Every structure is written in structure tokens, then in C-alpha cells.
């Protein structure tokens, strides 16, 4: 494995880690709102959050490219404050990954939040807990497994990201050349051996992640039974 491949693996881990760490505080209130809200806007938001599940990543990548490129208002604003473009940069990839992996964090969290009994929340509120306090002191501790599942899924899904990166990240070593792109490039340049090594690694990693998730979720069932 060459240094550029190691760099791609490190970059992928950094991207997936950053995305996961940022998504936890972003997805928590969103999932909580989705579980609690009776607003008519809820199904709309729910559908929007779930969009990356069904949308081809290239579509998301394309629109991000259109919105974030330096000549578009949002992209130009970013350039004016940071001096760097959001497209074809690590920051841009983090932003894209947050959107792309949003359902993978929000949905396990919402499921975990939903499984917290209403009775416990009522008890907490009569003991003087505000809704925010309830979330922190009752819901979040009870949703530990949801956080773990959401984090593992988000990390793994971000590691496997390809279409979005291809569209708006390109293939810049140390900046946007993540694992999947490196594999694609190896195939394109007929380096099948390197492609095999990395693809197999990714395969094993994805399997282990999902296995961990299923272990976590089956444990949860046992707790409920007990």
C-alpha cells in the first residue's frame, strides 16, 4: 500500500469521524423534534431528512456543486470569509457528508427516542424537569444504544460515500481523495492489485460495522424483554 493510499484511508477516517462528531449534536434536536412535534411541517421535514436514502448520491452532489461553487451566492460567501472554495475541499465534503448521512443518524436516534416511554417523561415533568431537561436527563441516557447505532452507521456510510465526492469533491490527494475515489482511480489506471487490497479492506470494515450494529440492536431487544 502506497503512502497516497494510506493518506486516502486516513482522510476517509477523518471525514467519517468529523461527520459523525458533528452529526450527533445536529441530529439530536432534529430527531427529538421529529418524535415530539405535532406540527404539520413534520412529515415534510421527515421526508427531506430521508431523501438521501433514495436519492442517487450524484443528484445530491450535483445540487451541492450548483449551490456551493464559488460563483453561486453561498459558495461565494464561503470564499469571502475563508478564502477557500467549498467545492473540491475537505470542508465541502464534511458539509456534503452531513447531509448525505443525516438519515443514518436521525433515524436510529428517532427510533431510540420513540422507545422512551411517555410515562417516564410525564414523571420527569412532574418532578420539575423542563422539556429540555427531560431530553438531557431522561431521553438521552435511555437512548445510548441509539447514539451508538447511529454513530456506527453514519461513520460506515460516510466511509462508503462515492457519488457525492465524485461530483463535488473530485480527487485531490489529502483533501478529497477518499478511499472509494482511490479505488476508482486504481481501477481506472489498471492498478487492480491496489484496488483489490483497498476494496477488500472496505468490505471487511463495512461488514464488521453492520455486524456491530446488529449486535447492538439485538441486545436492546433483550433489555426490553427483561
Amino acid at each position, binding site marked *: 500500500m502506497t503512502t497516497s493510499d494510506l493518506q486516502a484511508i486516513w482522510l476517509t477516517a477523518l471525514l467519517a469521524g468529523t461527520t459523525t462528531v458533528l452529526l450527533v449534536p445536529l441530529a439530536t434536536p432534529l430527531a427529538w423534534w421529529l418524535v415530539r412535534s405535532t406540527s404539520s411541517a413534520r412529515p415534510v421535514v421527515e421526508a427531506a431528512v430521508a431523501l438521501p436514502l433514495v436519492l442517487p448520491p450524484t443528484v445530491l452532489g450535483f445540487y451541492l456543486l450548483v449551490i456551493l461553487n464559488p460563483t453561486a451566492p453561498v459558495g461565494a460567501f464561503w470564499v469571502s470569509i475563508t478564502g477557500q472554495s467549498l467545492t473540491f475541499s475537505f470542508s465541502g465534503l464534511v458539509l456534503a457528508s452531513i447531509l448525505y448521512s443525516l438519515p443514518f443518524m436521525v433515524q436510529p436516534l428517532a427510533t431510540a427516542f420513540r422507545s422512551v416511554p411517555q410515562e*417516564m417523561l*410525564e414523571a420527569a*415533568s*412532574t*418532578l420539575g424537569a423542563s422539556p429540555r431537561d427531560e431530553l438531557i436527563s431522561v431521553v438521552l441516557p435511555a437512548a445510548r444504544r441509539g447514539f451508538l447505532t447511529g454513530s456506527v452507521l453514519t461513520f460506515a456510510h460516510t466511509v462508503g460515500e462515492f457519488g457525492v465526492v465524485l461530483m463535488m469533491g473530485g480527487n485531490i490527494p489529502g483533501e478529497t481523495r477518499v478511499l472509494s475515489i482511490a479505488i476508482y482511480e486504481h481501477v481506472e489506471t489498471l492498478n487492480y492489485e491496489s484496488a483489490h487490497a483497498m476494496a477488500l479492506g472496505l468490505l471487511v470494515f463495512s461488514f464488521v460495522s453492520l455486524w456491530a450494529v446488529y449486535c447492538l440492536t439485538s441486545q436492546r431487544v433483550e433489555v426490553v424483554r427483561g
Partner: protein
Amino acid sequence: MSARLLVDGRLARSGSSIDVSVDLDLSNPIGVSGPTGAGKTTLLRMIAGLEPDFGGRVEVTLDGQQEIWSEPSRGNLVPVHRRHVGFVFQDSRLFPGRTVQANLDYAIQRARAVGPVQDVDSMIRALKIESLLNQPAELLSGGERQRVAIARTLLSKPKLLLMDEPMAANDNAHRDALIAYLSDWLEKHKIPMIYVSHSFAELRRIVPQCLVMARGRVVAQGGAAEVSILSNETAVEDAGGFFHAATVLSADTVKGVLTVQVSLEETDSLKRMAAGDRVGFRVGEPASDFGALLQPEPNENERESD
């Protein structure tokens, strides 16, 4: 110190509805009784703000201060956590996965925002939960759970105490100790209380005043000794009857004649009555427990079951 509570409004549910209009003097604790499904728990929940669909009025005067907790057309004005009610739920509702101590701490930490929390240790001893402190809440027996729930609620420094069958799972010895402690505590802290129980024997020991509810309505209100109810209410209800509290006017033990006054004017069944009609009634033990079935009694055997 005057304390009042006004609840006025209707909560429609699929299959049943609650329709109450009461103005209660809370200087003394008040009991609520009535058969299962009468709406006792729902009344407490409406007062606490746990029924978001309740569109009626809840108005309280506590420590001489009047507050409007909910109002028609404006809904719940004061969220549950700002009402400072202490609610002991029938099913205890301890936080699972935490120790008894952690459950009590949850209340204590939040009560400290209101003021210092005192007598924690003496309460833990009096409610006989000191040996349970390090146990996970889910491993407790029903009675233990209720005692912890009572302690947790009392430690939360409530301004109004709402208790829903708080002692049902405890045996007589524990219940006596609980009642004694609760009475002392109420006496000391001067906290108004509404206490739901289906047992008149229990109510009479704790509260001087009672409401009787049936089918979502308050059907009687008065001193615990005058407001009475049959113990097998459901059986008589199923027979198509309707419970009414009644006041005994005279009891002629020689002739075996009991004269009672049914204290409700608006009931339809009264209008259908004429002199000479037979009505079913039961005198409980002691004799102040009393209910009447204001319809020809269908089955004498019903009265035997207890």
C-alpha cells in the same frame, strides 16, 4: 392559609368523556373515589397539565396566590414542570436502569432550584427504603416501588400533591406507617393534597373531604363520612344502575327502616321513581359506607360478593 382549586371543562375521549366542574377548598386534603374508569386519574392528570387535549379551565390559589394554569381557547398556559405539582402515579414510574438513590436525587436536584431540601434521611427511614438505596429501581417489589415514588415526589418540594392510589401495592403494616407519615408531613408542610383511592376505608383515615366520581362526572361531594359508596360498584353499574351518594336521615334498628336522602337533584333516574318502587342499596361496613341503585334491583346475589 387558603388554597383553592377550580377545574371546569370537558375532555372528550374515544368511548368516554370527562366533564367536571368543581371548585374545591384545599385547606384540607381532598379525596377522590369512584369505580374504575370513573375518571379519577384523568382528573388528576388534567390538574397536573398532563392532558394536552383538555381545553377547560384550571385555576389554583396556592400560598394566597392565584394562578390560571389552563383556560378555554388558550389551552395549557402553564407547562407541567412550572406547576410544581407532585404526582404519585399509580404505576410508580421510577426511572429504570437507575438506583433508588438516583431516582431520589433526580427529584432533589430539581427541587434545589426552588429551595433547600430537608429531612431527606428521616423520610428515607420513615418510608423504610434505606436498605433499597443502592438497588436498581426495576428490581423492587410493587410496594417498595410505591414507597420510593412517594419519597421521590415529597422530596420534589411540590406546592400541590396529587396522589393516585399511592398505597395500593403495600400491605397493611406498611400502609399504616405510610398514612401516619403522610399525615405528619402534610401537617408540617401545609401542602394541599388530592388523594385518589377506591377504598373509602383508606380515604377516611387520610382526608376529611371527598369527591365521588362516576362515568366522568363528579356525582357527590362532601365529608368523607357522609359521602359513601358501595364496594362492588362495578357489578351494580353493569346491571344498568347508577351510583349516588346519599345521606342517612334516620336508622330505625327496631323496625328495620332506613331513611336516606339522595343528594342529587338533576338525575333522570330519580324522575322515573315513584312511591312503592323497590330500589337496591347496600350498607357498607361501617354503616356510613352507603350506595343506592336507583333502579329495580335485578339480582339479590350481586350484593353478596365483596
